[in-house]
């Protein structure tokens, strides 16, 4: 039991470091009602329109482009492929992910991608 406490405390202290990336990834996926794998050129197009890539995508290796976008905007991407919102191989393998937030969730984020450190 003592070892569990130690591991939990260690996990907590890691929450802003590299090992905490899985929590951060799960955290943004929890805000996503739907997820789509999209072609890279479309993801770059969304960023050119001002949408912000989620920092957690850049913390994975290889890096991923992960953005929240509106349902209407994703509908215009012909190559968008729906995925289960789960930590499954298909989602993890997608180089570019577009997430549609829950209606009551955070707004689609705009602006440059902030850096974590």
């Amino acid at each position, binding site marked *: *039991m*003592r070892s*569990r*406490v130690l591991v*939990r*405390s260690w*996990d*907590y202290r890691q*929450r802003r470091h590299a090992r905490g990336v899985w*929590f951060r990834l*799960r*955290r943004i*996926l*929890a*805000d996503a*009602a739907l997820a789509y794998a999209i072609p890279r050129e479309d993801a770059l197009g969304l960023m050119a329109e001002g949408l912000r890539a989620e920092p957690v995508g850049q913390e994975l290796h290889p890096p991923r482009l992960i953005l929240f976008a509106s349902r209407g905007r994703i509908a215009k991407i012909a190559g968008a492929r729906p995925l*289960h*919102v*789960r*930590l499954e191989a298909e989602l993890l393998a997608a180089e570019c992910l577009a997430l549609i937030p*829950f*209606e*009551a*969730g*955070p707004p689609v984020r705009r602006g440059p991608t902030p850096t974590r450190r």
Partner: protein
Amino acid sequence: MTFRDRLLATIRAARPVLEQPGVLVVGSEVPNLLEPDAAATLIVSQDLDIGVPVDCHAAVKLRLGDIRDLVPSADEPSVWVPASRDLLEVNFVGIDPTQDPSEAYVLEDERLPLLVFGALSLIEPGAAIDIEGTRVRLPRPAGLLLEKLVTDRTGDKGERDLLVALGLLWTSGADDLQELEDSFARLRPELRHAVCSNLTILSLLAPRAGMPDPLARRAEVAALLRRLEARDRESA
């Protein structure tokens, strides 16, 4: 014989202890008992967890001899095994309201030793319900939900336990969620983080037969997560 029949027969067999003041049913059977007419449709392990507050331990021991058709396991005396397949196993676990939620200790006793789980300190007595003539005290939903979410959840059992938490969330009202939020705010930062982490895991679980469907409740889980994070920021 259905699982519900066995659950109810176990409750009847353990009635002398279950009706002892302070004693609670805890664990995964709570959502089963909260279903209309204790329908017990969730697929969970085949046991009934009975929470014994440490200050009730002596009184509970006096009633053990009145339990029917269950006997202490030779391997682990806090587990009582049924004499027939018509009953479920019974696990006695200790509750110590003064205990740190991260820790555990053993209340040593020859007749009824108890593993006192710290997370059970988050539980408070709630409503008593009548199960076919036996008065069973259940925990308040907020504390039981928090206990499920603060505990390390890994592997298959961990995922099932989180789906049990989802079942509790499903039946919780606005007052229960406010109570959950207030209790959450009193936790240490690493435990608050554990709760949020478990909610993210719950949000991404695949559906399982016989369990609450996580896909149907993802928006509510996300809303609860945001609400708890806001309290976390206030508490930091």
